[in-house]
């Protein structure tokens, strides 16, 4: 199969808030921009569903702005390998794209962090963001009893969204103690947009108990979740539930930055003031540089886009806004840090690695991720450690600092197309047609 080829000035990986912002400003500055995303939609995970069910003005503004720009969008394309230093390969449903770039902006977003507990592998236990996103595209939640649990501001937004789709959300269990959540809430005055958003969500949630200092201990059921046992540290009780939407804040997607040898610091991509990584011409914006939310990502994305377009003066106009969002980011991550009890949720026979079905007791004796992988296959299944990696980091302190291509499991045919000597390859086409 012949690869479809593209050449551009700036390639943006990820079409969430950071990627949209970066692509818009770079394309508006006259650069040839290609935006790649593994989903069929624009907006990333946080704004997923906005194209079909518009609810947020900011999302609509940015999606329209991108659609009006000359940037070329390649959707449903999963970046899986770098063919050469400035050429990246992506798999689509029907083939392989080969994209050469002058500047690369990684806006790969974040995923939910899962902390294993007994029963978390049962169907019906999902990430809150995941259940919400799928409910916007037809996943049936109407009339279902749902517990939303874990930690982070996403829980309230998800409970609100699920209710609007007809779910009976009867409890939101937030592991962070109430006093800490209150302190965070009071600090939001510095970010009025967030405050309005938060109050709006809270108002619609009236009637749903938001219990802080409360977390799930186990999920039970035959073939799917039917009951959830929760605790507030002193009292333990069980609720009948059709779904348990449970996630513990977010972890940055740093596989691509790692694959390109970008340096990390404390699990996040190191960038300079222009959002450029430690690898020349490779920029990074949004959650991979530290989980700070959509507004922070939009600002960082604009800085990255303008800097990559060779407009440092315009980029620097956003520095003070970014500094303010970084204060918010620090408060966010401090507030929703995991309490130590979360390390004790998984029992000896709880599965940690879902793909290879590796249980906690099989992992305890190892001192690092690499050794555990080699001996138990933990993290070597289809998700390549994306789910258990965040858990292993929290439970055992193991950092995953190496990624090998392919960055995502792909078809054998796609891997074969990564051969740079392929004589059937066509000549590059310009992105604008």
């Amino acid at each position, binding site marked *: 199969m012949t690869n479809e080829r593209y050449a551009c000035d700036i390639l943006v990986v990820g079409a969430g808030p950071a990627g949209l912002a970066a692509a818009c400003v770079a394309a508006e500055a006259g650069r040839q921009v290609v935006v790649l995303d593994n989903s069929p939609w624009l907006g990333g995970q946080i704004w997923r569903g906005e194209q079909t069910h518009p609810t947020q003005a900011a999302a609509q503004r940015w999606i329209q702005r991108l659609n009006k720009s000359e940037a070329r969008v390649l959707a449903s394309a999963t970046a899986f390998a770098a063919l050469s230093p400035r050429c990246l390969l992506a798999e689509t449903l029907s083939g392989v794209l080969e994209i050469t770039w002058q500047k690369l902006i990684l806006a790969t977003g974040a995923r939910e962090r899962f902390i294993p507990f007994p029963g978390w592998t049962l*169907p019906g236990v999902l990430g809150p963001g995941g259940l919400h996103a799928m409910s916007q595209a037809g996943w049936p939640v109407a009339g279902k009893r749902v517990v939303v649990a874990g930690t982070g501001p996403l829980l309230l937004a998800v409970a609100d969204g699920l209710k609007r789709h007809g779910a009976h959300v009867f409890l939101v269990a937030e592991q962070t103690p109430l006093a800490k959540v209150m302190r965070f809430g009071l600090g939001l005055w510095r970010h009025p947009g967030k405050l309005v958003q938060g109050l709006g969500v809270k108002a619609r949630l009236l009637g749903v108990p938001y219990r802080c200092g409360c977390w799930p201990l186990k999920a039970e059921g035959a073939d799917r979740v039917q009951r959830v046992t929760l605790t507030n540290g002193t009292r333990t009780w069980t609720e009948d539930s059709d779904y348990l939407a449970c996630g513990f804040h977010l972890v940055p997607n740093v596989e691509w930055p790692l694959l390109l040898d970008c340096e990390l610091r404390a699990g996040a991509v190191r960038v300079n003031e222009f959002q450029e990584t430690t690898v020349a011409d490779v920029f990074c914006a949004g959650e991979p540089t530290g989980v700070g939310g959509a507004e922070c990502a939009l600002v960082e994305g604009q800085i990255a886009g303008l800097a990559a377009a060779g407009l440092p003066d315009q980029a620097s106009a956003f520095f003070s806004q970014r500094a303010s969002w970084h204060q918010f980011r620090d408060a966010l991550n401090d507030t929703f840090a995991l309490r130590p009890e979360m390390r004790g949720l998984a029992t000896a026979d709880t599965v940690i690695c879902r793909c290879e079905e590796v249980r906690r007791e099989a992992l305890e004796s190892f001192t690092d991720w690499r050794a555990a992988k080699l001996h138990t296959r933990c993290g070597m299944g289809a*998700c390549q450690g994306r789910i258990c990696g965040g858990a292993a980091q929290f439970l055992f302190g193991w950092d995953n600092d190496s990624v090998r291509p392919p960055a995502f499991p792909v078809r054998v045919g796609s891997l074969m197309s990564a051969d740079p000597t392929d004589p059937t390859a066509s000549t590059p086409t310009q992105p604008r047609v």
Partner: protein
Amino acid sequence: MTERVTLSVNGQPVSVPAGTLVAAAVALAGVTRFRASIHGEPRGPLCGMGVCFECRATINGQPHSRSCLTVCEEGMEVRTDD
């Protein structure tokens, strides 16, 4: 009225509104077990965003497709638990 598409899930016809995810169509068909774990435990979607691969299904003959990232199309054939 919303446009609808009809697809087949494990041989059973399912009609869903256009724009519905394959994962959602599978759930609407009453299937909770998308796949079996290596020790035979039932599994369904976890992340809903293309990361965990728990929702994988055979879509139009293509095995290991992420049903949470794929939108239903008319005449599509979906098989779970392969």
